[in-house]
């Protein structure tokens, strides 16, 4: 894997993302998106061979492409509703990858919780905060896109470089999954033995979150100017 190519691709991707951010001074919309998509596709196709067995790699490449593109659109789309829908796409792709990783129970849980529960809430809130007349002004312009994108891609480059630099070490000797590894029973047993305290605490956390969400949402806002209830 020629790392120079990676650097070029990452730079290209970064530049594309920067251009694709909403409201940037050099916002060029679709053209940038196409550049970006191209870069992502090449990137993913470069990654795919890393993923071992043939059809496994193919699936992975496809899912990765979906995930990355979805993620890109989540952060570049000016309309929150679309962002949320793209996020759903990401979730589905990640779920697929989890299946590839033999974590079927987790994949199911992810889809059920995110797609079923969390995203519904999100959509609900998005709709609640929706106003007529196109995207809100704050959605039309990104904040500090240059620094943000640059920082992110430098970090990405650093991480990627590390992973690829140790490619042989990491990628070598893929462990064969044991037949029963993805067994939901085993996960459950693990959770209720080794991590039982964590499970309990998580339960409490969820309870607290629920109570907290209720109390917060029930609170009446007081406008600062008049001090009246709304």
């Amino acid at each position: 894997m020629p790392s120079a190519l990676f650097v070029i691709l990452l730079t290209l991707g970064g530049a594309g993302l920067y251009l694709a951010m909403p409201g940037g001074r050099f916002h060029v919309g679709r053209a940038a998106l196409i550049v970006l998509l191209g870069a992502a596709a090449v990137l993913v196709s470069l990654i795919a061979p890393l993923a071992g067995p043939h059809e496994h790699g193919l699936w992975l490449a496809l899912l990765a492409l979906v995930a990355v593109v979805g993620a890109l659109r989540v952060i570049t789309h000016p309309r929150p509703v679309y962002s949320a829908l793209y996020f759903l796409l990401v979730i589905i792709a990640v779920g697929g990858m989890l299946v590839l990783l033999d974590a079927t129970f987790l994949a199911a849980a992810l889809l059920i919780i995110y797609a079923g529960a969390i995203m519904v809430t999100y959509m609900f809130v998005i709709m609640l905060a929706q106003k007529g007349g196109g995207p809100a002004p704050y959605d039309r312009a990104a904040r500090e896109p240059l620094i943000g994108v640059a920082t992110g891609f430098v970090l990405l480059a650093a991480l990627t470089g590390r992973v690829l630099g140790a490619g042989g070490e990491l990628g070598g000797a893929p462990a064969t999954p044991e037949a029963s590894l993805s067994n939901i029973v085993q996960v459950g047993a693990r959770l209720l033995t080794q991590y039982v305290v964590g499970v309990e605490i998580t339960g409490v956390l969820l309870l607290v979150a629920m109570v907290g969400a209720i109390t917060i949402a029930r609170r009446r806002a007081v406008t600062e100017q008049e001090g009246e209830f709304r």
Partner: protein
Amino acid sequence: MLAAYLLIGAGLFVLGLIGFVTRRNLIIMFLCTELMFQGIVLNLVAFGRYPLDGHPTLDGQAFGLFLLAVAAAEAALALALIVLLYRYRDTLDPNVWKLLKDE
């Protein structure tokens, strides 16, 4: 094998990070944190599946489950807060809230 997942995880994480920093919509920002969670879940599970010592474990998946629970809790609270904030100022722009600034 592992490397591919790590790279995808890193990509998701970094994209989430960029989104969190640059987008000016509270809801999208929280979506971006969820994006970062996805990258992390992917990492955790991949490490469990392809461990460096060659013995796959379920710990990655267990952690992933915890992460899901935390994400759910966080989403509930965060969205409640967002609703509240929106009621106060009629906007989702986080830059309206600068109470941390020492004036």
